[in-house]
């Protein structure tokens, strides 16, 4: 029996009312902040027992409160309980949220009144329970130290006089949990006791105080919601300041207009990935909660960055819940103890830092270097991992890596250098694939000499690599994570490359000691059992359909469920098609099964209205999606009658909005979150960390300018729409943060007030005896799955629950049944072949005009667009952006011979262009890039058109200006942002790209 229930047995409703009244008076006297809040509004709040038609009312006048018994004839607010018992149970803290929610669902607990009044009253009551809580540490010099967290790691935030002085990585104290130690080859390795964070975390102060912050709501000057909207002038006509009230009225008015006049589905919602950190403020949390309450066409995420793994590798080894990526468990210890070599293939973890993990992996790769583990780096660019670790650099032509992979398999088969025992025991289809590789099926044998002609890597180098690999215990680090992502998988040939990566790993007995997929980025010996929700678990959204809330979060943090009744959706990659062509088709991003990805959905869906209002959340989308000029055309299309952009900074698309709502950063609001814990799709991503850190995200400063937190913006809108009590459950962000804390394992290890004050908690690592086993060791040994991951779902285990992989046979399938069963796909056949892609070196016709291949990898210093532009400190980093005549251009890397042929000098301004678009960059002439290839990091968050938007070169350097919107394989929506042909020339200062 809970304390509240117990207390409710002994405390009468009348006593609670008297007590509450006294509590308000005392709190008012004790806390000036509370007194100030109480004086904000004069109103009468009735507490009503419906069954008896009796109760008490509180009268707030000039900051004072009076209690009266009975029923007020005209209360502003009525808090109603069905009966006295309900009131007793629900009013005594600590609150039982399950009961609270249930009472609301059953209308045993009701709230009536004007939204502004009900919100004020509820927040006043909630505040009275938390106002004594203290946070922040006093520091010398009058500074206060807070804690916060973001995409790149936890930080201390030192504040003086309401202004952030510095942000610096969290350094662990002696009384924080001890660190783990790995013993390998006679040496002991223990990580440094501090958070190794990312550059995009270290630059955040500059982005809080940024010239590019949106300081107040704005409206496009020639946009009139009741008259001429002039959509064609988006991006040209400029914006003017308006009040919050006016802005919210326009947005709420458009929502009502769309819902009542245009029909369901007419409101489209578009978010950016990798929002600012925090379980409450995350888009999957606060934004989904609001949008579900109004119904929306979700412009949904795709497995972007996982393309080849999701649409390809998954068919061989399952892992649908990981979007085709591999398991992370135990890989660091196994690699350090047993591996002789790591092959980094399209893998630059020093640049990309896995996902959210800052620079935590760097020290572990230094240990590998100290141990004398051999390194091979396969990448057309001499990347940062190759730079710092050394080893052999092999630079294939972009897009041809699968030829190289098949030739390696050829050598292994030809010379008997693969694990026959493993292949026979736990795989299927090998003979069929082998016949293809050896040319026994009538195709050309995939010899190193054959591959050399395709990939440009000398045959003897391929053979040497294959022999060493076949004879040594090797970790294949494919993609930045070691077992997922990587530029090679965002190629027109990305699906085939990722498929071959897992096949090579299987040929070498993946899961046996020292043989696995990884690059020391994932798989530290942390504790995997301590529960803290990841952001994909939906935070406060109540969204059981589009988030992973149903797995743990929804049970552990009871909150009102929300449902998006609009089933129409648009894949993010196809938004331009949807708007401009009025239709598009997508595949379902299924995570519960492998087969689910074949399911199609079309837009517009039957019965739904086309999207005519776009609720744009964040604003740097054009930089990450192929053929971005077409998106810009869509944003300027009259088919979109209204675009609202809720954003912190003026980014790429802010300029195309009709109304702009200024949001604030996570340093200006309350939140809570665990470092590098998205949960769900990247389950146990904390295994990239040396220490698990759960962070309180203190509100360090007041919102800059007139900006507000996303939650408060949605709350304000929900008040206009009469949805605020549902949206907020009476909670502020602070109250939600506390509920998230309570839902986790945190209360078991650290009381709320201690956590609030201290600001972070380090989860102790597992003892050496209970460390999780190495990923796939169970599979290699034909045991049941013994790593702490409850997926795949039971029905996907086809032989026996927890036995085998998520394939039809339960074995690793060299020729996947899921691809065999469907009508044969020419571009994704069951037997993985090498097929030349499109827009690569093979495309001789297009190369006449655009002779250079361009790769556009994920950027190093920014996290996609996060941290780029926005007046950020990152613009001071020469390898990121270079200032020329007062503008921070992005860099294009070009080989000395290619530069010489075009008379391009180092640091010259160049135009990188093809028929789709163009960008202006600063040239870096360097032998680090393979001849014939140029390199520009994608994800510019600065869009500055030199002339008419969408029809001119981009001075911001958006690499997707020149990439194609074409999918890798037809039956997918797998983008191919690294398949680009361009020509580069010294920029003549003209706006055009043709």
């Amino acid at each position, binding site marked *: 029996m809970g304390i509240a229930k117990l207390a409710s047995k002994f405390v009468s409703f009348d006593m609670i009312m008297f007590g509450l009244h006294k509590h308000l008076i005392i709190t008012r006297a004790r806390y000036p902040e509370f007194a100030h809040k109480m004086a904000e509004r004069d109103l009468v709040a009735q507490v009503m027992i419906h069954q008896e038609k009796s109760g008490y009312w509180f009268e707030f006048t000039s900051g004072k409160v009076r209690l009266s018994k009975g029923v007020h004839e005209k209360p502003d607010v009525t808090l109603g309980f069905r009966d006295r018992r309900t009131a007793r149970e629900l009013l005594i803290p600590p609150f039982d949220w399950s009961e609270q929610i249930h009472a609301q669902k059953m209308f045993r607990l009701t709230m009536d009144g004007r939204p502004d009044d009900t919100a004020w009253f509820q927040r006043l009551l909630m505040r009275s329970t938390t106002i004594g809580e203290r946070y922040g540490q006093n520091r010398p010099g009058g500074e206060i130290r807070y804690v916060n967290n973001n995409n790149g790691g936890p930080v201390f935030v030192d504040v003086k006089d309401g202004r952030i002085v510095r942000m610096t990585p969290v350094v662990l104290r002696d009384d924080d949990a001890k660190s783990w130690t790995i013993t390998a080859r006679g040496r002991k390795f223990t990580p440094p006791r501090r958070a190794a964070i990312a550059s995009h975390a270290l*630059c955040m102060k500059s982005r809080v105080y940024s010239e590019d912050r949106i300081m107040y709501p704005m409206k496009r000057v020639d946009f009139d919601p009741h008259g001429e909207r002039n959509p064609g002038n988006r991006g040209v006509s400029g914006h003017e300041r308006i009040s919050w009230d006016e802005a919210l009225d326009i947005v709420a008015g458009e929502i009502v207009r769309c819902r009542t006049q245009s029909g369901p589905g007419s409101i489209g919602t578009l978010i950016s990935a990798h929002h600012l950190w925090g379980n409450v403020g995350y888009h999957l949390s606060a934004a989904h909660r609001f949008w579900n309450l109004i119904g929306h066409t979700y412009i949904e995420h795709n497995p972007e960055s996982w393309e080849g793994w999701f649409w390809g590798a998954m068919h061989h080894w399952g892992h649908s819940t990981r979007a085709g990526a591999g398991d992370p468990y135990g890989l660091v210890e196994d690699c350090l103890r047993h591996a002789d070599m790591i092959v980094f293939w399209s893998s630059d973890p020093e640049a990309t830092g896995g996902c959210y993990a800052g620079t935590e992996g760097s020290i572990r790769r*230094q240990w590998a270097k100290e141990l004398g583990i051999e390194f091979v780096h396969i990448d057309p660019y*001499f990347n*940062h991992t190759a730079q710092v670790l050394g080893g052999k650099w092999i630079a294939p032509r972009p897009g041809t890596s699968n030829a190289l992979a098949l030739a390696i398999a050829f050598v292994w088969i030809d010379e008997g250098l693969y694990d026959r025992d493993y292949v026979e025991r736990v795989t299927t289809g090998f003979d069929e694939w082998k016949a293809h590789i050896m040319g026994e099926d009538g195709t050309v044998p995939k010899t190193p000499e054959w591959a050399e002609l395709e990939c440009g890597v000398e045959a003897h*180098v391929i*053979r040497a690599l294959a022999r060493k690999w076949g004879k040594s215990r090797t970790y294949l680090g494919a993609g930045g994570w070691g077992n997922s992502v990587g530029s090679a998988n965002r190629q027109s040939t990305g699906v085939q490359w990722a498929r071959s990566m897992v096949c090579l790993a299987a040929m070498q007995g993946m899961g046996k000691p020292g043989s696995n997929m990884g690059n020391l980025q994932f798989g530290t010996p942390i504790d995997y059992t301590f529960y803290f929700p990841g952001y994909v678990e939906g935070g406060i959204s109540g969204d059981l359909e589009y988030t992973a809330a149903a797995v743990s979060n929804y049970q552990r943090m009871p909150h009102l469920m929300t449902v998006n009744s609009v089933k129409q959706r648009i894949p993010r990659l196809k938004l331009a098609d949807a708007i401009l062509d009025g239709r598009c088709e997508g595949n379902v991003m299924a995570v519960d099964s492998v087969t689910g990805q074949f399911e199609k959905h079309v837009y517009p869906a039957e019965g739904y209205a086309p999207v005519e209002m776009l609720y744009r959340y964040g604003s740097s989308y054009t930089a990450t999606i192929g053929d971005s000029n077409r998106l810009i055309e869509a944003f300027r299309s009259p088919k979109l009658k209204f675009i609202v952009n809720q954003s912190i900074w003026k980014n790429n698309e802010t300029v195309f909005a009709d109304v702009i709502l200024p949001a604030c950063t996570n340093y200006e609001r309350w939140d809570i979150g665990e470092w590098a814990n998205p949960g769900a799709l990247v389950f146990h991503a904390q295994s990239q960390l040396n220490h698990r850190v759960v962070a309180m995200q203190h509100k360090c400063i007041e919102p800059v300018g007139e900006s507000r937190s996303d939650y408060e913006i949605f709350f304000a809108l929900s008040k206009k729409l009469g949805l605020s009590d549902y949206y907020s459950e009476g909670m502020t962000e602070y109250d939600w943060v506390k509920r998230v804390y309570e839902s986790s394992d945190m209360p078991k290890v650290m009381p709320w007030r201690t956590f609030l004050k201290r600001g972070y908690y380090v989860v102790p690592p597992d003892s050496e005896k209970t460390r999780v086993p190495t990923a796939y060791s169970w599979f290699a040994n034909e045991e049941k799955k013994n790593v702490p991951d409850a997926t795949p779902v039971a029905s996907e285990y086809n032989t026996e629950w927890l036995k085998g992989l998520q394939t039809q046979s339960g074995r690793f399938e060299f020729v996947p049944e899921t691809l065999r069963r469907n009508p044969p796909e020419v571009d994704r056949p069951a037997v993985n072949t090498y097929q030349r892609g499109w827009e690569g070196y093979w495309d001789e016709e297009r190369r006449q005009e655009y002779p250079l291949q361009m790769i556009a990898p994920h950027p190093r210093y920014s996290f996609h667009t996060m941290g780029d532009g926005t007046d950020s400190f990152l613009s001071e980093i020469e390898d990121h952006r270079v200032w020329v005549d007062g503008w921070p251009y992005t860099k294009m890397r070009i080989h000395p011979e290619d530069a010489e042929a075009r008379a391009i000098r180092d640091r010259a301004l160049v135009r990188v262009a093809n028929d789709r678009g163009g960008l202006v960059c600063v040239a870096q002439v360097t032998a680090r890039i393979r001849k014939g290839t140029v390199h520009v990091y994608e994800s510019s968050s600065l869009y500055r058109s030199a002339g008419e938007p969408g029809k001119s070169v981009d001075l911001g350097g958006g690499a997707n200006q020149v990439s194609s919107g074409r999918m890798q394989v037809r039956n997918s929506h797998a983008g191919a942002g690294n398949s680009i042909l361009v020509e580069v020339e010294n920029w003549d200062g003209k706006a055009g790209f043709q």
Partner: protein
Amino acid sequence: MTKWNMILDVDRCNNCRNCFLSVLDEYAENEHAGYSAPTPRKGAHLMEIDTHERGSGQDLDVTYVPVTCNHCDDAPCMKAAEKGAVYTRPDGIVIIDPVKSKGQKQIAEACPFGRVYWNEELQIPQIWTFDAHLLDQGWERPRMADACPTLAIETVKCSDAEMESRARRENLRTLQPELGTKPRIYYRNLDRIFENFVSGSVLVKSADTLDVVEGAEVALRRNEEKTIETRTDFFGDFRFTGLPCEATEIEIEVRTGGKTVSRRMTLARSGRVDPFILEA
């Protein structure tokens, strides 16, 4: 008296820029009264990371060298200063007084490392102060050391004699020691930016294939210097480092399977030579 020193291991530096950003975050638009005035957020790089690229073809190496105020014991900026605007603290840290130094552009111009920033707006020279204001508040190390993920930055507080002997013992170098400024910033593994390398591979040719030779003995001779020997690795590659940066006559001799080939050449810059191809 113990004094502050810093050791930067360039072998562990991958240009992640956390040190650079820490400095920017600490000094840009922040006033540290008595220590430093705010620097502008754009263009004021109290530290920079220089890039040294060497090699050719697919045999490269790139070295990043972080450069900041060297807190020289015999600092040229101090000599150039008037009115005692630049002084050394007892703990070795050099401070440019933000008030007294006003208008003294010669202080910035005097730095041979180019790391005294001239603040045009405030008309003062500015440096990274080793985060003296934080150390004085009890911080254990400057911020950049906390931010470095690979422990490439070590700060050491010890006597000058101890530091000197450690530098000798561990082969630590300073930038431009020939100037005699006695920097307090030391570097580990800096050699490769002052040296050339030569690399190549040994291959064996049979009827229709070319293959690498692992374990071939390779010797490098030059002038009167001692011959250096190595063996090829599993890619058939060899590499000799530690060669002088000026044009040098060298001879590379390859011995494998009872065969010997050699080649003489002039090595002007680091790089890869054509492969040694032996008949099977």
